């Protein structure tokens, strides 16, 4: 780790100002991604802007048919929130399956979504549930937010403040874990909200999370595992590494999608 200046603003406005004015500044949420990269000297921000003292970023609340989760809510708090468990159990289960207990008690939804790791779990839920990302400047629809590997629609001085999730009628997440890291080798989130059916895939796409439109179309006819029979996805454009070739990932996408539909 290189030396840096540590800032701890008390408000989102202060955080945004620090981002805009301080040289090479980075937000720090749970630090589960940022700190390891800094320790390995792969990232070297001059200023760290810690969001941990901004309390209203940690809330989880219900607003009509929506669940609103503050950017600084940890994975553990999402997993154990009665509101989330009662209304979007698939989301609570997803949060409870991230990393290990230490990671879940530090890592945050805002950090995870902002980071947009291609193997992260949350992006699949955010996209499948048609969530809205709120920042200090605007609201961004999930479909507009994820812009490729570790890339999002966020601007330099933009801070995620909360994410709103509409409640689905049926939803499930199936994660096939990388045996070593336990990130998603393939994760499929299936959600049905009225006539809107979404199937999103994380862990596999070489551009990060994506929607599997053929599966969505098939399930729109009838929301059942049977509708998926014979459906497969091409391996081209999928990631390959020592743990899984593109072909294996393509196969797992179909398997996990069927399992998610069965579980939803």
């Amino acid at each position, binding site marked *: 780790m290189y030396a840096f200046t540590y800032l701890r603003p008390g408000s989102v406005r202060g955080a945004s100002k620090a981002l805009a004015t301080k040289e090479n500044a980075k937000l720090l949420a749970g630090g589960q991604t940022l700190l390891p990269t800094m320790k390995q000297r792969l990232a070297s921000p001059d200023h760290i802007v810690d969001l941990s003292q901004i309390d209203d970023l940690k809330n989880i609340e219900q607003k009509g048919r929506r669940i609103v989760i503050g950017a600084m809510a940890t994975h553990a708090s999402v997993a154990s929130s009665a509101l989330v468990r009662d209304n979007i159990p698939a989301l609570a289960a997803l949060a409870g399956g991230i990393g290990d207990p230490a990671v879940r008690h530090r890592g945050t939804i805002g950090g995870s979504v902002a980071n947009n790791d291609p193997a992260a779990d949350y992006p699949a839920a955010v996209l499948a549930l048609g969530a809205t990302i709120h920042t200090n400047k605007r609201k961004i629809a999930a479909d507009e937010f994820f812009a490729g590997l570790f890339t999002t629609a966020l601007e330099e001085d933009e801070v995620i403040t909360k994410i709103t999730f509409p409640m689905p009628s049926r939803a499930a997440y199936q994660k*096939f874990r990388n045996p*070593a*890291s336990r*990130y998603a080798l393939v994760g499929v989130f299936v959600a049905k909200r009225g006539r809107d059916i979404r199937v999103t895939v994380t862990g596999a796409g070489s551009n990060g999370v994506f929607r599997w439109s053929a599966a969505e179309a098939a399930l729109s006819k009838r929301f059942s595992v049977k509708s998926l029979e014979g459906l497969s996805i091409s391996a081209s454009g999928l990631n390959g590494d020592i743990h899984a070739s593109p072909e294996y990932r393509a196969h797992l996408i179909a*398997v996990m999608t069927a399992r998610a539909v069965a579980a939803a």
Partner: protein
Amino acid sequence: MTKTGIGASVKRKEDQRFITGNGQYTDDVSRPGHVHAYFLRSPHAHAVIRRLDIAAAKGAPGVLGVFTGDDLAADKIGGLICGWMIHSKDGSAMKAGAHPALAQGKVRYVGDHVAVVIAETLAEARDGAEKIIVDYEVLPAVIDTAGAQAAKTQLHDVAPRNTVFEWAIGDKAATEAAFGAAHHVTKIDLVNNRLVPNAMEPRAAIGEYDPGQGAYTLWTTSQNPHVARLVLSAFIGIAPENKLRVIAPDVGGGFGSKIFIYAEETVAVWASKKVGRPVKWVSDRTEAFLSDAHGRDHVTHAELAMDAKGKILGLRVKTIANLGAYLSTFSSSVPTYLYATLLSGQYDIPAIYAEVDAVYTNTAPVDAYRGAGRPEATFVVERIIETAARQMGLDPADLRKRNFVRKFPHQTPVIMMYDAGDYRASLDKAMEIADVKGFGKRKREAARRGRLRGLGYSTYIEACGIAPSQAVGSLGAGVGLWESAEVRVNPTGSVEVLTGSHAHGQGHETTFAQLVSERLGVPMESINIVHGDTDKVQFGMGTYGSRSGAVGMSAIVKALDKVEAKAKKVAAHLLEASEADIDFKDGKFTVKGTDKSVAFADVALNAYVAHKFPTSEIEPGLKEGAFYDPTNFTFPAGCHICEVEIDPETGVTEIANYTAVDDFGVLINPMIVEGQVHGGIAQGIGQALTEGAVYDASGQLLTASYMDYCMPRADNLPSFKLGFTETRCPSNPLGIKGCGEAGAIAAPAAVMNAMTDALGTEAVTMPATPQAVWKVAQSQQKLAAAE
């Protein structure tokens, strides 16, 4: 059996300090004014260093010194050594390429040591290292084990065809004849995957030079501090032995990787004099992946000759063993005498011939890792016999029974003389515990759920308690492998045992104390086991090869015998009886046929006070030492049975059942033995299903962190079912055989025999990851569809 004596499951004394954070590991050692070392490592697998410019680094803030291979050479510090000489078939000595602690003009693996920066803080040392300018001329890398000999690139000038040695054991002509007479020949090709040891505590060192005494002290994560001192002194030339103290305090796991003498501790202790400050180095996890000696990495072709009735006639084996870029301390012994001497397994095999070529590649050095050679041997023998049974349509358990050694001692065709065992007993017991009879039903039930269920055996044997000095000397070892002990009885009757064994997780502070408690009748809390410091302990060969019980404790027994003999003399004077009439039992000396007695503690006090016996006849004091050299290796053996269930849709494997029945001879502490077995099985399952070091073609280690290197975790493992059988080991006084490695030795073959059974093909390689299994399941389904 007493509550704390031999055979009692006494809770581990040392755990209180470990689990309350009061252990004292090398990184916990702080010396006044100590500074930090950071090693600049090669990013290339193979390169010539055209220019190495350290000027800017030397001037960087906080930097006290920057050193390179030239500085070591200028101080006449020698290279790292390999202490076991192997000769090739043609009689030539193995080709040991120079192994400087800091590179001299060339780097040979990613992580190789280019220079060291010593600075006030670790961050400053790292900053300094970033200012070192290195011009590398990158050379092609040799990575592939099987292809190393044919590669165009040569790593060491002394080793043409990248070949360290081409060694053989056994009777070639007799083996050829056996194959000529065979009714059936089974052939297999196996890869024994490369593993990274992953001790929980990474390696660390802190070196200190005392100018007043002209002496060095090195705290280091070592399994054998005396051997480290010997090598650092006699071969590397840091300082004479009497001017070098090596302390291995609490050590958090080794699995072999901390036997060896590495570049980092060598440089840390040497540099402490150069910079005039104690120098500390602690490996980070990535450095551990890159630079700890790895394990295994064999490519093997084996053939088994059988007669029509399933009697084994002969075995021939050809193995290529990858030793990495340099020869580590004991690397040459692992694929030779620790491997091929066990190729007879538990079987009466009339003829065996094995050839082993050891090769250099641009990868981390490979050396002993839990089991060291014996897991590789067991994997060959147990995979081929299971395959032979399947090919011949015989039951794999029956085939084993037909071939078991039944008479002892048994001389194998590959040096070993098995002294005792009952292989049938452990197989029978394991089959009963594993409910092999019910397997068919379980398999059908699994099939209804779409799962493939398979069962596999591993009736393994190992040679432990390594061992007789003359024997290992005749095989090329540069050291003797006895052990030493000193038993010091204090005037108040408490006892200190100084042992040359070294505990790094094994629980010696408990088991060794149990022995003393039983023998002297002294309570556990009055017994201290002292180890790991060359200034305290007389000498020692350390802990590896499951030798602490069989060899280390036997030395203590010898010393205890002397203590008891002397105490009897003192007691005779105190009781005014003749020495021949004194009995010693439960901590009390009694005179035969009388009610006169004196407690051990009183005898100890009197031994030191020396008022009541003539010191011209009996020396004062009660302290005895012993060196013990066994007459043979010990031969733990047993039967492991693994049952797996595979989801062919995803390739995920679940270990449904795992049974281990082991014959370790006499058990000192069954609870600790079970712990050793559990850990060993976990590592063996890790090798079979999850672990594997992967280098890409350019020599980058792709599995250099836990994000990619998959250690087995609790949820990969079932609750093991353990059982024991017992045949006493005849070659040591306690009748014990050793239990530290059995799990890691037996498990890979048991798991892979189950996997291949479930999948219906022998073409499954380790690690059988979900992806690998899915691929096999896919092609099996295609085959089935085509039929």
